[in-house]
């Protein structure tokens, strides 16, 4: 997308819509070709469109379907200055363009450390070695012969909202909160694979490893693997996308995305953690006093209003308004979401609609009559463990501003009287 993309620029999009209406009005008033009399009304109704008259593409034209050309602005975007190189970088899910709880596969944010590995499934193997009775190798066909499960989980990068620790920076929930996606996985419980290999009694930790050029590794406690980890080969029904780890990835529900090793090729079983680069240099949370938390796995309760938001301004005049957003917790379900339109002075319960599943995104709505005056929008989620989403100041009071990871603070959007929205912080 270029600078001319008006969906990013609230005023121009608004202006465009207004001028569209103006042109339509002028056309409607003018005499129409081939008509004796001018009709009054909306040209979208009065004029015949091409698609009303002429034939469209046949069933052989789009063997794998794509979104409408009018949705071309709905894409993942990256932030060039964040990293040195796009092959070890991140792009962001366009949350403000989505509804419901499921993220379409092509819009799931990407984070990889050595580019997208293009793995031939016929040449892919999954090895289990270390503290097991039998060190085993599985082909993809082997994996698909184990009993499968279907589960919807969110995957959030621990660094989601990490740019906002020092204050409001990025204008758009795509950039402040878009390192998350929510997908239905089909896969084999990791427990079955480990049992097949036979765990030794001193087994306590796992080291999943990726087949990409980063050789991604993380230490995962065995208890988590036996609890709910999946070795997944499908997302939303179809094969994993290459950028999400095709042909097989680890699913570590509720825990930071970096642990969900993609292009999974090996799982070592051990008795101690490995303290590899991604759990020492990275994904440790530096506190103000210079000490750092390690093994901060769970993604805490969090929510964000996706509409309105800076990339999705209010385009109508005052009146009935639908506010919506997402809430999630790595520790269970969301028991409630409250919304404030006055910067946290007063709160109202939002309405959660759609499935409420553990460690999955929840969709909430708050409908209200906008009087056209400026608003300070906030959402605050509470999870089934009773943990309340904190304010950013409450987080900073405990953790300082250097921790990069695990920023689950309450987001504020400032809606101006014209409907334009900006990312702010409030007292």
């Amino acid at each position, binding site marked *: 997308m270029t600078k001319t993309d008006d969906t990013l620029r609230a005023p121009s999009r608004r202006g465009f819509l207004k001028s569209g209406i103006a042109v339509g009005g002028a056309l409607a008033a003018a005499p129409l070709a081939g008509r004796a009399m001018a009709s009054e009304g909306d040209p979208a109704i009065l004029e015949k469109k091409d698609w009303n008259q002429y034939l469209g593409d046949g069933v052989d034209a789009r063997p794998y379907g794509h979104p409408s050309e009018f949705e071309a602005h709905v894409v993942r975007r990256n932030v060039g200055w964040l990293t040195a190189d796009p092959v070890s970088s991140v792009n962001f899910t366009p949350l403000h363009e989505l509804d419901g709880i499921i993220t379409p596969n092509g819009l799931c944010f990407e984070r990889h450390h050595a580019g997208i590995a293009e793995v031939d499934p016929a040449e892919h193997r999954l090895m289990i070695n270390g503290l097991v009775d039998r060190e085993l190798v599985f082909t993809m066909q082997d994996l698909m012969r184990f009993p499968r499960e279907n589960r919807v989980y969110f995957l959030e990068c621990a660094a989601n909202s990490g740019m906002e620790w020092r204050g409001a920076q990025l*204008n758009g929930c795509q950039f402040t909160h878009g390192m998350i996606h929510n997908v239905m996985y089909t896969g084999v419980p990791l427990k079955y694979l480990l049992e097949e290999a036979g765990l030794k009694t001193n087994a306590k930790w796992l080291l999943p490893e990726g087949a990409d050029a980063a050789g991604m590794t993380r230490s995962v406690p065995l208890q988590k693997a036996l609890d709910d980890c999946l070795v997944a080969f499908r997302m939303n029904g179809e094969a994993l996308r290459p950028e999400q780890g095709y042909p097989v990835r680890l699913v570590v529900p509720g825990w930071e995305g970096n642990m969900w090793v993609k292009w999974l090729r*090996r799982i070592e079983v051990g008795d101690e953690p490995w303290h590899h680069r991604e759990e020492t240099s990275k994904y440790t949370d530096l506190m103000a006093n*210079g000490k750092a938390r*390690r093994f901060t796995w769970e993604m805490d309760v969090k929510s964000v209003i996706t509409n309105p938001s800076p990339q999705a301004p209010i385009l109508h005049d005052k009146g009935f308004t639908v506010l919506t957003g997402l809430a999630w917790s790595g520790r269970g379900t969301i028991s409630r979401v409250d919304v404030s339109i006055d910067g946290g002075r007063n709160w109202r319960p939002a309405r959660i609609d759609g499935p409420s599943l553990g460690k999955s995104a929840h969709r909430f709505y708050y409908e209200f009559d906008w009087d056209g005056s400026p608003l300070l929008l906030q959402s605050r989620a509470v999870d089934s463990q009773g943990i309340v989403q904190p304010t950013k100041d409450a987080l900073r009071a405990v953790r300082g501003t250097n921790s990069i990871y695990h920023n689950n603070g309450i987001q504020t959007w400032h809606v101006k009287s014209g409907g334009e929205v900006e990312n702010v912080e409030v007292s």
Partner: protein
Amino acid sequence: MSKFLKPAALLAALAVGVTAAHAGGKFGLGREATKDEVAAWDIDIRPDGTGLPDGKGNVSDGEEIFAERCAVCHGDFGEGVDRWPVLAGGHGTLSSDRPVKTIGSYWPYLSTVYDYINRAMPFGEAQSLTPDEVYAITAYLLYMNDVVTDDEFELSKENFTEIRLPNEENFFEDPRPDTATLRDGDPCMSNCKDKVEITMRAHVLDVTPDSEDDEAAAGSID
């Protein structure tokens, strides 16, 4: 042999001389790995030295290899070129406004340095270094970080676990939840603050992609 087996799968099966499912597991799926297969993939190193291969390398050899294979991104002294990662320095910065996390200032264990370089570097040419080269580069990075001061220092499998990194003690286990829960009372619903003022705007520091002022700003994703 099934006629559905693809030639590649057939070759792979023949190459290892095993086609039968292993005995013992509940489902009887998969096959036992050969020793060579495990050795080919099992390259991980732990802080206690588990996994280290035989080998050795000294600071001056390391300096040469580093200049040739690493310095184009990380700088001759590990100072980092442009936005590529900084590998040395940063001592005493961890509690400052701009912490510089390096092997010397932040990393708790030397084994991580060996393991990571061996598995992932040089960037774009992973797993192309010999054990002696990785020992030598690791020795050089210890020297650049003032963990060793002798420029003749040689690192080997034998003396590896004697080296401790200075920041090891400064990591602690996750204490969360460290913010309010319902046990602290129900969240406030009305008149929660006297007044609300905007204290900061992203506008002021507009680093949003596609905006006019696409400048690097504070913050990082990892």
